[in-house]
């Protein structure tokens, strides 16, 4: 009880000192992960499959909202894309984000990861008082996983990638402690704010949009910022001489090989046959 009151008191104290801690979550709209992707004449399409919030970004949204619920503050979701990507912001607000910003300009479409990062970083700077920016670890379309940390480097903020748990955020001391998921295990880190945090699936279980949230999202006004609004020198983005260019995109070659079904009178006969094949293939 005493501990609870103390914790509660501490949280109130924090909120008074930081009346509006501003958290950003950057999301992307992508084709649903179940979509069959087709390339015709160099154009990628995915039939009737709906566009969704990039699945990795759902974890970032959830973590941003939980952070606000725990420490107080305001969450702004940012999406960059075509006008239709506004739907992703509605999902974000229906889940519990307070506001949304849409970044949309014809000149954005040619951007590679670094160009995208510069635009997102500029938007975060324009919002002004942001302490923490959450990202999903990558988007399931481009799949580069380069954008979150590139934003950190453009802003000069602390880079924290592959975060699987946020232990504690101390806004007064401007510190954050997290666990990161590496190939070899979990790494615990203590770092300074402001920070860019990219999250992995293990971090949480994203909530569904609430009824009240959906109603709120349907009414909220979403500002659209273009190149001029962001105050970015357009030559920086337009003539990105060193940018990555997509020269070709193609479907995977369909395997012409039929599966070879291994059958036999007994389980022993089947596994003996399979072991022979695997030894012939020199994979065991």
């Amino acid at each position, binding site marked *: 009880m005493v501990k609870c009151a103390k914790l509660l008191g501490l949280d109130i104290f924090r909120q008074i000192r930081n009346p509006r801690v501003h958290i950003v979550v950057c999301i992307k709209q992508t084709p649903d992960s179940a979509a069959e992707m087709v390339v015709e004449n160099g154009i990628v399409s995915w039939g009737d499959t709906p566009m969704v919030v990039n699945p990795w970004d759902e974890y970032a949204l959830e973590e941003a909202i939980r952070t606000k619920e725990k420490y107080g503050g305001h969450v702004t979701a940012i999406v960059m894309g075509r006008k239709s990507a506004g739907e992703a912001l509605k999902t974000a607000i229906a889940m519990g984000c307070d506001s949304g910003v849409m970044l949309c300009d014809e000149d954005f479409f040619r951007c590679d990861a670094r160009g995208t990062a510069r635009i997102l970083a500029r938007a975060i700077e324009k919002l002004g008082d942001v302490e923490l920016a959450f990202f999903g670890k990558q988007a399931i379309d481009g799949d580069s996983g*380069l954008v979150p940390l590139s934003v950190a480097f453009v802003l000069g903020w602390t880079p924290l990638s592959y975060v699987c748990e946020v232990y504690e955020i101390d806004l007064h001391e401007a510190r954050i402690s997290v666990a990161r998921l590496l190939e070899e295990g979990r*790494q615990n880190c203590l770092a300074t704010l402001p920070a860019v945090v990219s999250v992995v699936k293990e971090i949480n279980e994203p909530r569904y949009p609430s009824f009240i949230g959906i109603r709120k999202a349907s009414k909220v006004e979403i500002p659209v910022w273009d190149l001029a609004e962001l105050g970015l020198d357009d030559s920086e983005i337009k003539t990105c001489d060193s940018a990555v260019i*997509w020269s070709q995109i193609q479907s995977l070659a369909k395997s012409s090989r039929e599966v070879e079904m291994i059958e036999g009178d007994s389980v022993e006969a089947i596994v003996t046959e399979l072991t022979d094949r695997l030894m012939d293939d020199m994979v065991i």
Partner: protein
Amino acid sequence: MAGNVWVYIDHFRGDPLPASWEAMGAARKIAAELNTGVDALVFGHGVDELVQLASEYGAEKVFVCDDATLADFRVQAYGAAAVKLTAAEEPVLVLAPATTRGRDLTALLGVELGVGVIADGVELNVKDSVVHVTRPVYAGKLRATVCAPGANPQIISLRPRAFPQPELVASTAKVVPVEAVLAEEDVAVKVTDHVAWENDVSLSDASIVVSGGRGVGGPDGFGSIRQLATTLGGAMGASRAAVDAGWIPYSHQVGQTGKTVSPDLYVACGISGAVQHQAGMRTSKVIVAINKDSEAPIFKLAKYGIVADLFDVVPALTKELKRRLDQ
């Protein structure tokens, strides 16, 4: 005379990842086409063995930055040293394995050097000094060919197991010591602790992966999957269905929202093979599918299929392999 091709040697506290040597092999091929040499970047603390290995894998020069601030990979500390060195030495191309560390380091180099970065290459072709990179996109459902012709240097990360392990060569590398750039107080991230995975073979590096799905039926069912994986010296994977059911930790998940693997042998046990799972394992060389449902999509991807109960087949296969492999 073009600058050399550089390879960032990725390691965890001095233990190199095989993908680092795969990148050395890829670098040697590119360097031969560009008529230049290969240099290795070995950053860390107490990394003499890595320097020797980088030399044996064909480095002409090994740039060594050995400093206490680099004991754990922290992208700011590693990046600052790499940026300074890159500006001074002007490599034509920087390759890194597309591991957690390699990806973060290449992102930093891209921003600080003002060049585009290409992630996850699985094939490299040189045309007019520009490296054209084939990479999987849309979770491996499509392949894109990309390049950054104006980038100097070009920066590319390579997907683990997409390139072969190269042969060793006679070691003659020149070792070039490099100073660290950031002092400890300038690094915003402090590593307080590390909890290693328990004795498991790393999924991304494994040459054999045995995975279980919904058909495994529960946490206990993974016992026989694990035995088969152990017998083969491979790693244990799982489908999203098994992970979401709480039967096995997320670190084992293979697929679109899990790990991408590319082993020589992938054994899918009780996995139907949803498109999201396929995204994580379709580049495996030989796929074996064991499933009761002959209509399961996994059979379309498999080289060998067995329509049977995995609880009959998997233990019998383990026993047969033990016998053949003299265990």
